């Protein structure tokens, strides 16, 4: 034993277990360091330690570094870099650890006293629709937030809003982590870039900025963000698929797959890469729906999320990119009635002896839901430039189905291609590790999620309502369940809810506070977020099913 030639291994006991992030951080730090003498990226990362002492030490260090910078004899503006300030701002607002939050706020105050212009977050909370205090009240689950902070280094608005449903959140974070960070066929910068491309389709500047930052952190080439003409052909060739997947997934055919998988060696996609990209795109599309649907505010360090101007009492500077605050909270008259009526209908529907309907009748009901005209044309200002230059053919959007009978796109029968039987197997076959498992788990969690309550009532079986919502979204995407009576959708989903769901699923960028507040007026916000989650997952599954079916046909 003694003289055994002990091989010596070198490892970087890195600050974090995610090397990509580490290198990214230091890389960003380098770019900052020219103008910025502020606290190192390292000390910011140390704040994510699980050990309280360690955090305290990091906080001290951070404080000293900031103070040292402030002490320097330099013009005030140049003393603390913008990035540092924004970091501090973000920490002071969103860190689930109280010590960190307070200290960051302290430091900002100190800086301000020393004459540094400090930024100010524009948004009052993570969401423009949901009051911040609601979120705190209903999201008592600090553990899951803490976990998110410790592993991601930040708690973004998506996480905060989803934290109302902790069981879903943990599942969501795991899936996202697996898609973006863990081993997979695509290089990491590409994954973020694909997410950027996808989010840009829905003009979701929130996700675009978030993934752009992620893209740069893992060493992506900055010029790519300048527009699609700067990226490799291979990535660019995804555009068509991205477009279809975002707006009209039913048009995806095996030819589209073939075009990507078969061309010359340079830009050829392998099936594994393609599936990875498809899952990423579908994920980003549906997440865009969620972001719009919950009216998420830009992060404090996003464009439009902060300002260096002091608040003026009269004229609040409002960024055009954040969802407008329209007070849709209207009178709450006779509201209690609505909920009761809905509950009664649910019970009726559940007990109702299946009356024999002709096939025509069933088809009519399906088509009626599918083609019901729901006005969704609130035109928003042009999307920011960051987003627009990443979109090709921005005119291509979800298309209302033609009136019944006229060239309606073919329906997909859920029984012929389902996630459980077919989609899962394909994803699992082509993607390594657990992406398939995680998606499967996520679908299951969301379809079983319930708190047995509705608005002010407890102990309610909400299954029929959730089912109706899920099937309605699939119906909008042309997926039909033979064993579902679409009359139920009409009974259970009020028109304002349909407006919301359809807007969110099909034209998410047009969601407004008015639409959000108009439906389910007596329900809690967490229940509305729950509805949001259902829409998002149903949409994800629908898009995946169409693409996976095309891939299956291609493989045949």
């Amino acid at each position, binding site marked *: 034993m003694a003289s055994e030639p002990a091989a010596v291994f070198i490892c970087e006991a890195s600050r*974090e277990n995610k090397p990509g992030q580490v290198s990214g951080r230091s890389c960003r730090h380098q770019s900052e360091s020219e103008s910025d003498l502020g606290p190192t990226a390292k000390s910011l990362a140390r704040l994510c*330690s699980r050990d309280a002492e360690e955090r305290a030490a990091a906080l001290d260090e951070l404080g000293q570094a900031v103070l040292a910078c402030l002490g320097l004899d330099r013009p005030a503006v140049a003393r603390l870099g913008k990035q540092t300030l924004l970091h501090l701002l973000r920490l002071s607002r969103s860190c689930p650890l109280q010590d960190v939050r307070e200290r960051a706020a302290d430091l900002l105050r100190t800086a301000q006293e020393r004459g540094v212009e400090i930024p100010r977050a524009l948004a009052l909370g993570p969401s423009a629709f949901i009051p911040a205090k609601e979120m705190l009240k209903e999201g008592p689950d600090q553990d899951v937030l803490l976990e998110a902070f410790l592993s991601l280094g930040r708690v973004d608005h998506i996480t905060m809003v989803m934290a109302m449903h902790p069981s879903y959140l943990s599942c969501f974070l795991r899936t996202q982590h697996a898609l973006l960070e863990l081993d997979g066929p695509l290089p990491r910068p590409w994954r973020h870039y694909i997410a950027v491309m996808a989010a840009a389709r829905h003009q979701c500047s929130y996700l675009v900025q978030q993934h752009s930052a992620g893209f740069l952190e893992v060493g992506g080439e900055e010029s790519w963000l300048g527009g699609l003409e700067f990226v490799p052909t291979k990535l660019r060739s995804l555009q068509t698929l991205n477009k279809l997947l975002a707006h009209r997934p039913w048009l995806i055919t095996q030819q589209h797959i073939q075009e990507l998988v078969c061309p010359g060696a340079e830009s050829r996609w392998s099936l594994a890469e393609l599936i990875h990209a498809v899952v990423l795109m579908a994920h980003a599309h549906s997440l865009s729906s969620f972001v719009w649907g919950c009216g998420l505010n830009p992060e404090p360090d996003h464009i439009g999320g902060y300002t260096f101007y002091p608040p003026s009492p009269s004229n609040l500077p409002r960024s055009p990119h954040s969802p407008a605050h329209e007070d849709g909270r209207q009178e709450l008259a006779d509201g209690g009635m609505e909920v009761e009526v809905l509950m009664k209908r649910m019970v009726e529907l559940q007990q109702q002896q299946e009356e024999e309907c002709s096939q025509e009748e069933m088809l009519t009901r399906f088509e009626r839901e599918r083609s019901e005209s729901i006005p969704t044309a609130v035109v928003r200002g042009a999307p920011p430039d960051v987003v627009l230059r990443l979109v090709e053919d921005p005119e291509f959007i979800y298309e209302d189905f033609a009136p019944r009978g006229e060239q309606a796109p073919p329906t997909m029968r859920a029984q012929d291609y389902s996630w459980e039987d077919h989609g899962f197997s*394909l994803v699992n076959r082509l993607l390594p590790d657990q992406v398939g498992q995680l998606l499967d788990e996520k679908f299951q969690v969301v379809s079983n999620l319930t708190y047995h309550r509705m608005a002010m009532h407890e102990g309610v079986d909400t299954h029929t309502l959730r089912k109706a919502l899920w099937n309605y979204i699939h119906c909008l995407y042309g997926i039909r369940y033979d064993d579902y009576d679409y009359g139920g959708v009409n009974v259970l989903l009020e028109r304002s809810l349909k407006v919301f769901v359809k807007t969110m699923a099909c034209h998410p960028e047009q969601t407004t506070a008015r639409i959000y507040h108009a439906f389910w007026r007596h329900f809690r916000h967490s229940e509305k977020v729950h509805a949001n989650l259902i829409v998002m997952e149903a949409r994800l599954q629908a898009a995946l099913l169409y693409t996976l079916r095309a891939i299956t046909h291609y493989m045949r």
Partner: protein
Amino acid sequence: MEKMSRVTTALGSSAFSGRTMFCHLDAPANAISVCRDATQVVVAGRNIFKIYTLEEEQFVEKLNLRVGRKPSLNFSCADVMWHQMEENLLATAATNGAVVTWNLGKPSRNKQDQLFTEHKRTVNKVCFHPTEVYMLLSGSQDGFMKCFDLRKKESVSTFSGQSESVRDVQFSMKDYFTFAASFENGNVQLWDIRRPDRYERMFTAHTGPVFCCDWHPDDRGWLATGGRDKMVKVWDMTTNRAKEIHCVQTIASVARVKWRPERKWHLATCSMMVDHNIYVWDIRRPFIPFATFEEHKDVTTGIVWRHQHDPYFLLSGSKDSTLYQHMFKDASRPVDKANPEGLCFGLFGDLAFAAKESLISSDANRKPYPGGDRRYPIFFFKKPDPTEQFAHVSSALSVFETDLDSNRMDWFVKTARLYLLSGKPFAELCDHNAKVARELNRPQVSTTWTMLRIMFSDPANLTTPGPNHNISKLGTLPLMNSFSMKEMGSGMGSESRLERSKGESRQDNIHLEPGNSHISNNNDENEETEGSEGQAEYMFGDAELDDDDLYSMEHDNQTEEQEYILPQEAFQLRHEIMDNPSAPEHLQQDKADSPHVSGNEAEVMCLTPIESFSLISISQPLFSPHLPASFFCPVVREMLSYYAEQGDVQMAVSVLIVLGDRIRKEIDDLTQEHWYMSYIDLLQRFELWNVSNEVIKLSTCSAITCLNQASTTLHINCSNCKRPMSNKGWICDRCHQCASVCAVCHHVVKGLFVWCQGCSHGGHLEHMMNWLKSSSHCPAGCGHLCEYT
């Protein structure tokens, strides 16, 4: 158990005759079922519901049950079953949740008999009781199983699966009252038909949905289940706990499983996705299908044995809208196609070879190896019924070890270590590498490097070292060298070889056969060896080959050069030696010349670009400065392919890296990627991690460079509490201790941490380096003799 009166037809199994045949359906089928006397088959699907009679030569459509102007969704069938007692009775499960029975005896066109709409969602399965005429069971997506008495209008009992979707229900062949149900969450439940309140037994059979189950027809209490996890499992239900007794791993999720009649160990499966074949497995040999039916062009959705006592006819329906009758005698037997020989190289030239015992023993010409034949084959026989059993299986595994002295991969390791691939000017890199090759007695490689430098360097730089010098040196070197190599080769080939062969054969040797294909990972390396049928002598064939390349290449290179420097010598040299390698050749007779042939071919290839000659003659003046480097690209490209083809992928990759942009455009990306992958694979086998990483880093293929971005997580355990560390590298969440303390300075290490694999103590890289310079003991005082390499 004699309650079970199986209907045994008087007809023996040979009473049917027929052939493999098929007919087109109008629409994809979802399920099929046969009637008791095996003369008719019903096909059901979303848009089809027909009965066909099975005639000798063809299927004949007998009845279309899908009637009406616009058939309702009740006709959209997920499953169908023909009653095994009552030949006019059929049941279907509809996608809209209806359970429908059909009475063929009805005089009207519409044969629909009963309609049960009790299920809320798609019914996945219907199953008649094997002996009771009126008992029908259904399993649905809504999580309920219902038992119907066909004399009543509604179900007699409902069994709840706790809102888990039911995928399959099957009455037991053994117990009158028992049925099995399989669920979407991976569970299988056993129920007593008389007790709807609670299942008798439940166990988790698969991860993910269990799509199908089937009781063994021979009263054995065996249940086969198939799941999305691509497994078929056979459970023994007679014991207290369901015990998994066999497991077959397939390549895709298992949609249906059916025991083969009259064959205790056989079952047929088909898949739900991707894979269109039907497999018949012998569960005792789960690694290779016993028989395969490959006729379908889309997934097979229904399989059924034509008659419950006839194992030779299998019917199947598919999404490709065809109905097939497969004859067992026409099935393909993968085991026949599987390569019965397996061959694999150890890193240092050891060779493992598994082959059919018969093949080896019948090889009379084989020389006994010095040291005696020490193979100990163990035979694995089965009853010799050629069509119904796996073909006679017995194989022997031999391991041939090479003698350490002739450990021929030394050069590879050394070369890999010593080559410089970047960091210096091009010319210096070439010179350095040429020197390395020369020192390792690889003159041809050395020359190639020199040539490359000459071709691609600026003419100005070139004049300094004096090409003459190099060339003349090379002119002599290979000569001596090749002689010695040859001698060595022939000498050892005949006697001085230390050859041991171990024979060893366990039952699992058999697995080697199908696995054969991926054994030869580095195709480049193995190409020649496969040609030589795995005899150990091939090694020397390879050695000759080296001589061969040597000259073929040298010829190429030197002609260009020596046109004007050493005119005749070069050609003489070549011819002189070209003749010689035939000397050891006859040792191996015909086998050995396969590498030769390839060598010659390659040589011809290298010589073909005649333009080079012409151009050289044009550029008579020494090193015409006008000659663009790109002019040489085709030659170099051929040279690289040649090396790669000869198995020296190292050379190909090294040159590729050193030349960089000068040549990259000339070679298509896939080839490059292939070379890189082969070389990296080799390097990693030799544990040359640093070199392989350097190669990955220097490569320009995106597919390669991303290799070292994958699997970058390093999991470590806390040195105090031995639990995994979750987040930060240096502090443990659980025991709140700093885990990675430097053994020298006792401070926490953040950054590069180095530790001894023997005693797991370590610390700052510099500290450890300094410490171990002066002391050989571990700085932690544990007494371990650490070594810093």
